[in-house]
């Protein structure tokens, strides 16, 4: 008798998703899908609101990366008031970047320490009662304490710039609301009240060293698990092709490193992207139209960014990037589990950038807002922690939003995550006489590497977990897993 496995909810991800795996009479995998079962329709209900409300409203998409939505929307709204990214005042650019690096730093720390490290430290098939952040705190207290303080540091940076740690407000059309004071920045530099930015850099390096050691001892698993060729998409610096998180041009490569999107300006994105829909999920499938649905999908996020960039402007992160690239002799890395390592290199990059910005007197300036000539359309693209985030708005003469299109990082990663599920189904579950909890967790380990934010991707509210189920050939659930 054939059967269907359902993982529902998938755990330790942001949002609610479900995995179904169909097995035949001999337990051979015949189908595997990653479904997103939330729906909200943020793009629709923002219509009719005045454009200046967008950066405030859309950040409510998420409690983990609201800053990313706030900034992407702000960049789009800047255009509506006639300001290109390079037209912002230098202090406003730097204050926004400080906010952004604080956000990416805390989000990546959250993912590594709270969500991913239990699998890495205890093993994907270890006791699920221990395989969680409390288990990490009990067995690795020093690591847990560093994780807490690194996340706290990023959140304090967000609070500095935006007023509070979640859903604060920093931007205004054409700039930012407030500067940083000398006293405020000292809080992050002197190490008296919280560990200093120099400590953050030191700890970031230590965590990367841990990850490198982990790769040495677990090389076979990490090199093979959920490895499959894919496109890689992200922003790069328009001048030198370096890693860029706040403002750049769009670049993509295929799984062999051939350029498939050659440094496209943000405003042209909709000439290159299509989104397809499927009946079994609310999450769309973006792809590069000139390559088609089958070949045009891309990973986004830390691994993609390491693959497409030509360097990193901060010295310590660049040194780590070179070590990372040496694994593949400078070529494209399609090994999904290397996403964790890439993410930690970005943690170090963000720490170095925050130090540079905190020590820069421009953030103390009151030159914060620019004005330009009103337009009817604005597009903002940034690299959110999870990958390329696109906000696109059109407004009417009464300043009301008439159209909104959001392509969120996790949406780009929809097909890659489905590929990951199929890889585990075919390589771990296929033909096995008994399916264990540890095997099912490997499905989640593959998804978790992408740090998906399913609420963002469907713009959804509600319960957050993710599920796996097992179906027989008649469509009856015979086993399932959820929290």
């Amino acid at each position, binding site marked *: 008798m054939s059967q269907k496995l359902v993982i529902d909810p998938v755990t330790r991800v942001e949002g609610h998703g479900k995995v179904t795996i169909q097995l035949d009479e001999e337990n051979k995998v015949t189908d595997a899908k990653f479904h997103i079962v939330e729906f909200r329709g943020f793009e629709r209900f923002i219509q009719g609101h005045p454009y200046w409300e967008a950066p405030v409203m859309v950040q409510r998409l998420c409690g983990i990366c609201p800053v990313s939505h706030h900034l992407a929307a702000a960049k789009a709204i800047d255009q509506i008031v006639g300001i290109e990214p390079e037209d912002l005042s230098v202090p406003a650019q730097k204050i926004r970047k400080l906010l952004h690096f604080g956000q990416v730093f805390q989000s990546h720390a959250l993912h590594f320490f709270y969500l991913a490290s239990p699998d890495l430290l205890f093993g994907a098939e270890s006791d699920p009662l221990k395989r969680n*952040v*409390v288990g990490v*705190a009990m067995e690795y207290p020093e690591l847990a*304490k560093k994780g807490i*303080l690194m996340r706290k540091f990023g959140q304090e940076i967000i609070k500095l710039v935006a007023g509070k740690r979640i859903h604060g407000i920093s931007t205004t059309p054409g700039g930012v609301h407030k500067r940083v004071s000398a006293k405020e920045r000292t809080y992050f530099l002197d190490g008296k009240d919280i560990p200093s930015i120099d400590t953050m850099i030191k700890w970031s390096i230590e965590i990367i060293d841990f990850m490198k050691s982990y790769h040495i001892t677990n090389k076979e698993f990490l090199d093979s698990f959920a490895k499959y060729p894919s496109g890689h998409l992200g922003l790069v610096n328009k001048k030198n092709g370096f890693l860029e998180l706040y403002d750049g041009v769009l670049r993509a490569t295929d799984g062999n490193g051939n350029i498939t999107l050659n440094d496209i300006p943000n405003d042209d994105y909709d000439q290159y992207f299509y989104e397809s829909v499927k009946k079994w999920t609310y999450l769309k499938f973006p792809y590069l139209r000139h390559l088609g649905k089958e070949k045009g999908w891309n990973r986004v996020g830390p691994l993609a960014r390491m693959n497409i960039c030509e360097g990193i402007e901060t010295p310590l992160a660049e040194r780590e990037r070179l070590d990372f690239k040496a694994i593949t002799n400078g070529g494209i890395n399609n090994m999904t589990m290397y996403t964790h390592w890439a993410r930690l290199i970005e943690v170090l990059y963000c720490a170095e950038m925050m130090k540079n910005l905190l020590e820069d007197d421009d953030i103390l300036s009151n030159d914060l807002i620019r004005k330009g000539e009103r337009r009817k359309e604005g597009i903002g693209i940034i690299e959110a922690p999870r990958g390329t985030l696109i906000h696109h708005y059109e407004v009417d003469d009464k300043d009301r939003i008439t159209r909104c299109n959001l392509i969120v990082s996790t949406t780009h990663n929809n097909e890659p995550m489905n590929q990951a599920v199929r890889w585990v189904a075919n390589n771990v579950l296929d033909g096995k006489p008994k399916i264990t909890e540890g095997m099912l967790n490997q499905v989640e380990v593959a998804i978790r590497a992408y740090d998906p934010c399913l609420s963002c991707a469907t713009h959804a509210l509600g319960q957050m977990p*993710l599920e796996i189920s097992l179906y027989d050939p008649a469509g009856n659930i015979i086993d399932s897993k959820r*929290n």
Partner: protein
Amino acid sequence: MKNNTIILGIGNVGRQDDGLGWLFLDFLEDEDFEGIDIEYRYQLQIEDAELICNYQTVIFIDATKEITKKGYYYKHCEPSDQFGFSTHELAPETILFLANQLYNHDPKAFILGIQGHEWNLEVGLSKTAKENLDKAKEYFGTNIFSRHVLSS
């Protein structure tokens, strides 16, 4: 962090009665109670274990679906290692457990649960929740504040 007591209000004012915890903090701010630091939370996270280590007394305030006799309950909160394995959202008991495990800190801890009834995507409390909030405020002013804030 200048006081001995921290009160963490948990909830979301965009989900009707789920905003009870935050609205209670608004009341504390408006009334300017002395000796208290307050923090608003959508959900508790592991870093709150580090935060509460700066205090002798912790009070968690949240909306509850539990049926209560008075419209609210107030009780001791004990450390526990029980944890939903899927998420980074933590219970007050787990926060206390982590504070003890990671920082060897064991504050006096209490939970004020205020009964709510409506949880839809709307701003504003239900009529019954408003009444329960008022009862909880009165109890805080006449009882909790003197027993667990001024004495800490």
